[in-house]
């Protein structure tokens, strides 16, 4: 058994332990989850460097996995922390067990060098997410959102599997490296590869929430309880990018000519739909959903280069996005607890009521809009640089223009918070004290957005390092 | 030349098909006769247990009673309720009967004597027995009667619950014999009475037999019929030949379960005196028949003895007792197999 698997095994065991704890000591489920995740981060950092391939690529540990896994774990920890006050009414053992299993699925996916584990990891993650959305059963909106998520998620899994089966039929292997060689070879029939990759890409785009496969996203974001929206919107996005990188980047790296145009279209449509769609949203979660769609378009800008530097930029963008969206949803969650509202108009006067929250939210919104010197700006710069490097200059120009459109609605939130008079919701809300740890981590989160934006060198360097050797030497 | 060859091919094929047909008939005919007399024995046994005589009018001591019943049922009118789904209503009895008879294809009567001695025979048995429920469900639904529907629902939930424990019990047998082939499972038990799987797998054998009783919807698990609450359950609307087919299916299933228990746990056609007594020690069909007769007697015995289970108790027994029990025993068996326990593993 590979040493690098220890973190994954720890998380899987944690899921079982937390399930039992939930039965006997529900109040310990949350601290146990955090302790296990923290232990997993430590284990990953210690064992992650022992790279290699096991069992014909079923389990792969490379620099890429060694970088992604701690990110996934840390993001999940923050997400559980922010969500805790809201989920305290729900069945504790079940919620954290599902969450840990989702994390386990992401870890499996990250270390997959084989179609089988790629799919199984993805399903483990997705199934846990569907159930988490529906876990608050008195909430009808959540049930509806879960249903939509489940239906479209199932459909996308079906498309993905169909693409997988065709890829297996064409190449006769499920190992991604062997597949890359076979697809690059002369024997692979071009038209069949196109069909296979179309299905695989469509399925991946669904999971990533890229337009025009984004229909589920606004409804799911809005309908889910904010704690689960936060979960769905952070780490699983990173996992979906990993799916794209492993499947298309590694498995079909020789077929750049087939998928690069497709990714260009997806990126452009996604940025446009995300930027324009968010303009007239009244619900903050829906707004963040459209923002997610737009950001996924930017992520694809990096990935479509098909080079190690391009994927590095994508991963950097995605990591930054995870940090920003965690912070944004963290504030949304607190306000949700405080004033029982998700309307943007109700954020009026937040700056007076709670300057700390408003400051973090402002920082996050500026960063999401791509205002220098924040993290979001650096991330955008990197992916646009990658896209220009790949020769997609016009697309890069369009991306910049669209991000100007997007800046409008981010700034509207800031304007409402700082300039509008408080509405009833926030004004008469009871004094809900925000737990100190949440305040602290929110502050840290905001500080990260600022500091990493000003000094991105280290993280950027790690991202580029992580992708070294990701692609086969051509 | 090719014509001649293909002609020969055809005749060979026809010949093979004819032989196969005869073999199938040779299995089905005795089963039908046994079913007929099983009904007679049932009434006699339960009669004596309740201090009655049972049927004794038709023929010597009532021995012709089954034939009288068959004629009565076949001559009756087949009624189809006014708003029933006619097609499914008439198909359902066959769907109940076909799997009950089809399973016999892999049952070995003595060494190598099965219609199809296939490697995955045990899986085939599981697949076929899992399909028997369709006849009941469809009968209940197509009758357009609330009692029938209730009976069908009960039956469906019950079958699904007990199938799992049944499958787990068979996993124990598979592990012990290292085979899915029914023939080889019996051969693996050769070597005398103490080699039979009933000893090391006693809980599994008991669970399997009880699940068998439940799967055939026999007392005390006959809530699908439950005449005291839901009249006659799924077959309340059936008369004449349709009812006869359900009857046939139920009894054929009983005989099948008895045969399977005999094969899986008590050595099938093997003699209990193997290696001890010269003539009695020989294996043969008669031993299988004797064992089956014993288990069939148990079916009747249960019916005369036990009151019907309440529905929630049935579910509790299936999910909360049998499944954990079988899982536990499979775990234990793993350990035994690893350390080499007794003459069995």
């Amino acid at each position, binding site marked *: 058994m590979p040493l690098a698997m220890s973190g994954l095994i720890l998380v899987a065991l944690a899921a079982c332990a937390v399930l039992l704890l939930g039965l006997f000591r529900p109040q310990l489920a949350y601290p146990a989850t955090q302790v296990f995740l923290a232990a997993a981060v430590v284990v990953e950092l210690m064992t992650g460097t022992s790279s290699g391939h096991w069992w014909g690529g*079923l389990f792969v540990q490379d620099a890429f996995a060694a970088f992604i896994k701690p990110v996934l774990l840390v993001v999940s920890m923050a997400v559980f922390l922010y969500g805790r006050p809201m989920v305290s009414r729900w069945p504790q053992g079940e919620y954290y067990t599902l969450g840990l299993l989702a994390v386990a699925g992401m870890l499996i996916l990250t270390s997959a060098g084989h179609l089988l584990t790629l799919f*199984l990891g993805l399903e483990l993650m997705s199934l846990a997410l569907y159930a988490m959305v529906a876990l608050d059963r008195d909430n009808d909106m959540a049930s509806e959102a879960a249903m939509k998520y489940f239906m479209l998620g199932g459909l996308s899994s079906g498309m993905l599997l169909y693409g997988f089966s065709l890829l297996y039929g064409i190449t006769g292997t499920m190992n991604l490296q062997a597949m890359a060689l076979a697809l690059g070879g002369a024997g692979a029939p071009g038209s069949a590869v196109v*069909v296979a990759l179309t299905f695989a890409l469509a399925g991946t785009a669904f999971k990533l929430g890229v337009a025009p496969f984004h229909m589920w996203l606004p409804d799911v974001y809005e309908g889910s309880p904010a704690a689960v929206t936060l979960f769905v919107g952070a780490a699983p996005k990173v996992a979906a990018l990993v799916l794209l990188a492993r499947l298309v980047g590694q498995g079909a790296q020789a077929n750049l000519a087939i998928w690069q145009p497709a990714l260009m279209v997806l990126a452009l449509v996604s940025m446009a739909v995300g930027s324009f769609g968010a303009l007239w949203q009244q619900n903050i979660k829906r707004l963040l959903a459209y923002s997610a769609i737009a950001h996924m378009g930017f992520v694809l800008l990096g990935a479509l280069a098909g080079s190690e530097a391009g994927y590095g930029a994508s991963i950097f963008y995605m990591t930054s996005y995870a940090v920003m969206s965690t912070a944004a949803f963290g504030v949304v969650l607190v306000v949700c607890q405080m004033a029982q509202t998700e309307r943007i108009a109700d954020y009026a006067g937040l700056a007076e009521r709670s300057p700390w929250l408003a400051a973090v939210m402002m920082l996050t919104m500026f960063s999401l809009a791509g205002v220098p010197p924040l993290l979001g700006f650096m991330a955008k710069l990197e992916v646009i640089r990658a896209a220009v490097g790949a020769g997609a200059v016009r697309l890069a120009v369009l991306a910049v223009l669209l991000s100007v459109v997007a800046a409008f609605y981010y700034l509207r939130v800031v304007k409402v918070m700082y300039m509008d008079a408080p509405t009833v919701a926030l004004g008469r809300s009871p004094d809900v004290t925000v737990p100190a740890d949440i305040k602290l981590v929110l502050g840290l989160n905001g500080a990260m957005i600022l500091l990493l934006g000003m000094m991105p060198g280290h993280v950027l360097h790690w991202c580029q390092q992580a992708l070294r050797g990701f692609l086969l030497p051509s | 030349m090719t014509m001649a060859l293909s002609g020969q091919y055809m005749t060979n094929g026809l010949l093979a098909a004819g032989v196969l047909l005869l073999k199938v008939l040779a299995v089905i005919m005795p089963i039908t006769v046994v079913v007929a007399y099983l009904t007679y024995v049932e009434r006699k046994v339960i009669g004596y247990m309740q201090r009655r005589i049972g049927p004794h009018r038709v023929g010597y001591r009532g021995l012709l009673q089954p034939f009288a019943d068959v004629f009565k049922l076949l001559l009756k009118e087949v009624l189809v309720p006014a708003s029933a789904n006619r097609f499914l209503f008439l198909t359902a009895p066959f769907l109940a009967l076909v799997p009950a008879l089809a399973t016999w294809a892999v049952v070995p009567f003595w060494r190598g004597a099965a219609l199809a001695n296939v490697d*995955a025979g045990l*899986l*085939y048995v599981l697949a076929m027995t899992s*399909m028997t429920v*369709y006849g009941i469900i469809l009968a209940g639904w197509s009758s357009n009667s609330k009692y029938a529907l209730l009976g069908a629902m009960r039956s469906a939930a019950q079958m699904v619950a007990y199938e799992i424990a049944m499958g787990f019990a068979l996993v124990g047998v598979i592990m012990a014999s290292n085979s*899915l082939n029914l023939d080889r499972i019996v051969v693996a038990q050769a070597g005398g009475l103490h080699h039979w799987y009933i000893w090391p797998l006693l809980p599994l054998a008991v669970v399997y037999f009880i699940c068998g009783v439940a799967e055939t919807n026999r007392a005390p698990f006959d809530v699908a019929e439950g005449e005291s609450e839901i009249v006659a359950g799924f077959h309340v609307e059936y008369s004449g030949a349709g009812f006869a087919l359900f009857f046939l299916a139920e009894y054929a299933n009983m005989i099948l379960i008895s045969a399977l228990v005999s094969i899986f746990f008590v050595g099938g056609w093997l003699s209990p005196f193997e290696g001890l007594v010269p003539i009695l020690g020989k294996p043969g069909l008669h031993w299988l028949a004797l064992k089956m007769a014993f288990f069939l007697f148990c079916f009747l015995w249960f019916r005369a003895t036990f009151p019907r289970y309440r529905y929630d108790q049935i579910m509790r027994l299936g999910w909360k007792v049998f499944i954990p029990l079988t899982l536990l025993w499979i775990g234990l068996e793993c350990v035994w197999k690893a350390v080499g326990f007794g003459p069995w593993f």
Partner: protein
Amino acid sequence: MLPALPFYLASAFLIGASLGVVGSRNPVYAALFLVLAFVSAAVLWLLAGAEFLAMALVVVYVGAVMVLFLFVVMMIDVRLAVLHRSFVRYLPLGVLVAVAMMVQIIAALRGLAQGAGHAFPEGGNTEALGTLIYTRFLYPFEIAGLILLLAIVAAIALTLRRREGTRHQDPGRQVLVRKQDRLRLWRLPPHQASGEQLPASAQREDT
């Protein structure tokens, strides 16, 4: 042609049954067509020599999943007319998309017909399958186990509602009941008429 006849027959049944699933107006018929489709698929696998997969398909899908499916379909009241209307409305578009996709896929995959794919080993492959699952593919097999655990937890978490005030049986407590819990003996003065209040003089007799 002749040896391939069973294959074409089972395939025809599979396609016909699948069309039936989509086209049936009665949901019970649709479910039954799905059963037929599963059985046909099992026959196809059997013909390909994959007897374990075929039997597992029948046991799991036909024997358990579809039974529960039918169970649910029979209990809910589906408005056939409404279903039918939307079906007819979307039929032209659906057929168009389906045909277009089929033509494209056939055109794309035509070159793939020969060569690809692996033959199943002759005879039984259950053992080979088992060996592979528990050695080379142990890791994905364990992940599948995790997914099933997840499914159990999710299904129970989403459906189990502890209702207040239901009277359910607890066999453990039933077994633990003792005589003192149920039976009290009272010593009554012999001349007291029956049916009246217990007199204060009645004494509890310790049992």
